């Protein structure tokens, strides 16, 4: 796979890897009394592994010119496998921490194994490891097909993919060592944030350069969403991670903002990570894979436009609904609530657009588990965005905030929308990527689907119940006008739901393990007839007559 790089790309890769090695060495020395040193060592190891991989193919023959007549899918292939591996890792850790809330002594008297350190491994593993790799993989795939153009070069996609996964590894290992800046979903420290910043800029440049080479006059709707995802995540990441490191030899840093300003910045970031990482990017996925798999055009072009600009504009206002009744000025809270409610229009626009696209293809939904994954994703996208708007209403939020209802809500989104659309897209894309007729085992896709649905419903119902019970118990008064329940009584009341949650999570995890096995076996088993998508290639330089939108 790396042998497909040209000689000059191999040389550039070596230079970059040597630079990485030097950075890692500098960190290892400067941070010898600090967790930073361990991360320096990890970066060095990664660089050395990369250098060996390049040296191994350095004298291999140059790739021939035929490659330019094909899409460049090697990074996508690796991203798909990595996404499935991170899914299993992230969900496994998630299930472990779920069980820890049932059996709290499951920590071996060690810091790294306690809930507080494992929980961000779970959240980052799923959001960034699983979600991020899936987004990078699918976006590069979709970008080329919808532009009818090859990626501009072969090295930069590898840089993005490998740099991004190094960031994920630094994040996860950092949490185990207690390296965190405690900003939820932005926990990695300053040096990992800087790495991601560089990776992200290169990612955006790939996008712009490929779009500049496109043979289609219009930028396809999926690419609007992917572009919004890349651009806005860059803005959010930069602002929310402004911080002052203790020194260049310390992993620790102090946020540039404090108190109420920090809280607003954090939830502006936090909610828009939901909006632009977990929604916009995955909508890009949906707008390509769902119509293709269903064999139907997108139902409404106008709805796509309204939905896109509605989401891009309105989402940025809603973060303050995380801070109802707090020390944040009330007018900011009210703005957040108002925009959260208005946001229902573009959100349901996209959900309806997806489901209406399936009109005339419902028989396929019945027979094809891959398409069913996408259908359930669209349904849960609709459910979760409705629930989110509802929970942003101040009076509802007074009950739901701080409870498991929030946890249930994000999992309805993460399991029901993000994971389902990703699994659907991966099952659609894997046979195309590896030129197979179908997945290794369609039966296992069915198994995965039903395990995922069972796990999702068990999880979400358990958390809805526990959250609402918890919220109600906190505010229950007895006849003499004093609080009825002590805090610990509400903890005890959660126990059965915590067990149910851990069981539901186990179902979902099992499905992901089956998915990983199925993807792996599809790659390994080559005795199937080759895929018939022979026309799946970029257009040569002199542009052919343009396609019109809606065709």
């Amino acid at each position: 796979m790396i042998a497909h790089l040209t000689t000059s790309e191999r040389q550039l890769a070596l230079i970059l890897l040597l630079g990485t090695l030097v950075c890692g060495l500098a960190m290892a020395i400067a941070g010898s009394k600090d967790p930073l040193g361990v991360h320096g060592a990890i970066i060095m190891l990664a660089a050395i592994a990369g250098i060996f991989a390049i040296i191994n193919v350095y004298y291999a023959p140059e790739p021939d010119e035929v490659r330019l007549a094909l899409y460049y899918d090697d990074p996508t292939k690796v991203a798909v496998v990595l996404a499935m591996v991170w899914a299993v890792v992230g969900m496994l850790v998630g299930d472990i921490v779920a069980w820890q809330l049932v059996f709290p002594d499951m920590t071996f008297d060690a810091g790294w194994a306690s809930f507080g350190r494992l929980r961000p491994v779970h959240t980052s593993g799923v959001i960034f490891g699983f979600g991020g790799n899936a987004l990078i993989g699918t976006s590069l795939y979709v970008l080329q097909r919808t532009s009818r153009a090859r990626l501009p070069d072969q090295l930069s996609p590898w840089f993005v993919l490998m740099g991004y996964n190094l960031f994920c590894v630094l994040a996860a290992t950092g949490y185990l060592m207690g390296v965190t800046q405690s900003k939820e979903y932005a926990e990695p420290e300053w040096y990992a944030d800087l790495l991601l910043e560089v990776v992200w800029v290169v990612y955006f440049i790939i996008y712009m350069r490929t779009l500049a080479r496109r043979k289609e006059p219009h930028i396809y709707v999926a690419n609007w969403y992917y572009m919004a995802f890349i651009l806005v995540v860059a803005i959010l990441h930069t602002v929310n991670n402004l911080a002052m490191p203790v020194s260049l030899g310390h992993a620790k840093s102090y946020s540039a903002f404090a108190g109420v300003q920090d809280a607003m910045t954090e939830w502006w970031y936090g909610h828009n990570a939901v909006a632009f990482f977990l929604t916009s990017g995955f909508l890009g996925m949906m707008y390509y894979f769902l119509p293709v798999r269903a064999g139907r055009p997108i139902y409404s072009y106008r709805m796509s436009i309204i939905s896109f600009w509605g989401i891009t504009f309105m989402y940025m206002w809603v973060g303050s609904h995380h801070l109802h009744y707090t020390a944040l000025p009330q007018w900011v809270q009210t703005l957040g609530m108002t925009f959260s409610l208005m946001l229902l229009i573009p959100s349901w626009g996209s959900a309806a657009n997806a489901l209406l696209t399936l009109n005339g293809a419902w028989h396929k939904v019945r027979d094809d588990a891959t398409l069913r994954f996408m259908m359930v994703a669209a349904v849960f996208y609709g459910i979760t965005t409705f629930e989110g708007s509802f929970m942003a209403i101040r009076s509802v939020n007074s009950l739901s905030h701080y409870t498991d209802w929030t946890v249930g809500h994000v999992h309805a989104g993460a399991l029901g929308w993000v994971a389902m659309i990703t699994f659907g897209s991966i099952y659609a894309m894997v046979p195309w990527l590896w030129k197979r007729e179908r997945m290794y085992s369609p039966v296992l896709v069915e198994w995965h689907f039903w395990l995922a649905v069972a796990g999702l419903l068990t999880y979400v119902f358990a958390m809805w119940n526990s959250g609402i019970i918890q919220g109600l118990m906190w505010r229950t008064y007895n006849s003499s006008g004093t609080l009825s329940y002590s805090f610990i009584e509400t903890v005890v009341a959660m126990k059965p739901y915590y067990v149910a949650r851990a069981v539901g999570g186990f179902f979902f995890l099992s499905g992901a393990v089956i998915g990983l096995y199925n993807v792996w076996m599809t790659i390994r088993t080559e005795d199937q007839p080759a895929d018939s998508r022979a026309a799946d290639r970029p257009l040569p330089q002199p542009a052919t007559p343009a396609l019109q939108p809606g065709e």
Partner: protein
Amino acid sequence: MGFLGLHYRIERKTMTLAIGIIFAASIGGIVEIAPLFTIHQTVEDAPDMRVYTPLELTGRNIYIREGCYACHSQMIRTLRDEVERYGPYSLAVESKYDHPMLWGSKRTGPDLARLGGKYSDDWHVKHLINPRNVVPESVMPPYAYLARNKIRTDDLGLHLAAMRKVGVPYTDEMIANASADAYGQTTPDTPYAEGVAKRYGAATNIRAFDGVAGEPTEMDALVAYLQILGKLTDAAHKTTTAKAGE
């Protein structure tokens, strides 16, 4: 040219689309965040407000390191049941030296904004060693190893200096004596302890928080931090009393 016609042109131009996205996405954040740095509701002052001592700051960093914020909020909302359960609701000024804030988003355990002084040091130590020693139904993990780990004090001056760079008013004297002050806060009746009281106020808690005199442990630091929660300023109590008296 209608809306669709306009869009028909935008989606043919990569840069226009990119700039459009940045523009549409920037407005909300600018309107909601920028004013927070100037308007009086969020930048008010409390005259009695003090900064964290080096030991308390170390404890706060341990609190962050262990991810305590994932289960405990530090933000009492303006709701009757919360004020009755935890104490006066939190004010913006109380977290003005919190880089970052630890308001939290989830209460798997109770809110800690007014924890300071509520329990004895001994209770905290027992609770951290194994929460089920004092609360049999607790689902919190044990943190026994905190009592075994000595804290690193040689770099505390750098920590204070970094905090000063982001706006916390640590003096040169505080920064220069950071390591000694961390030691002094856990060893009363020594000259080091006097320095702590001089720099951070006579009301500062100075004692062996983990019950063992000598080198400060992570347990010392974390308990010192927990005992100061909600006690950096009296503003919240004053506000509530004033309102009740009106």
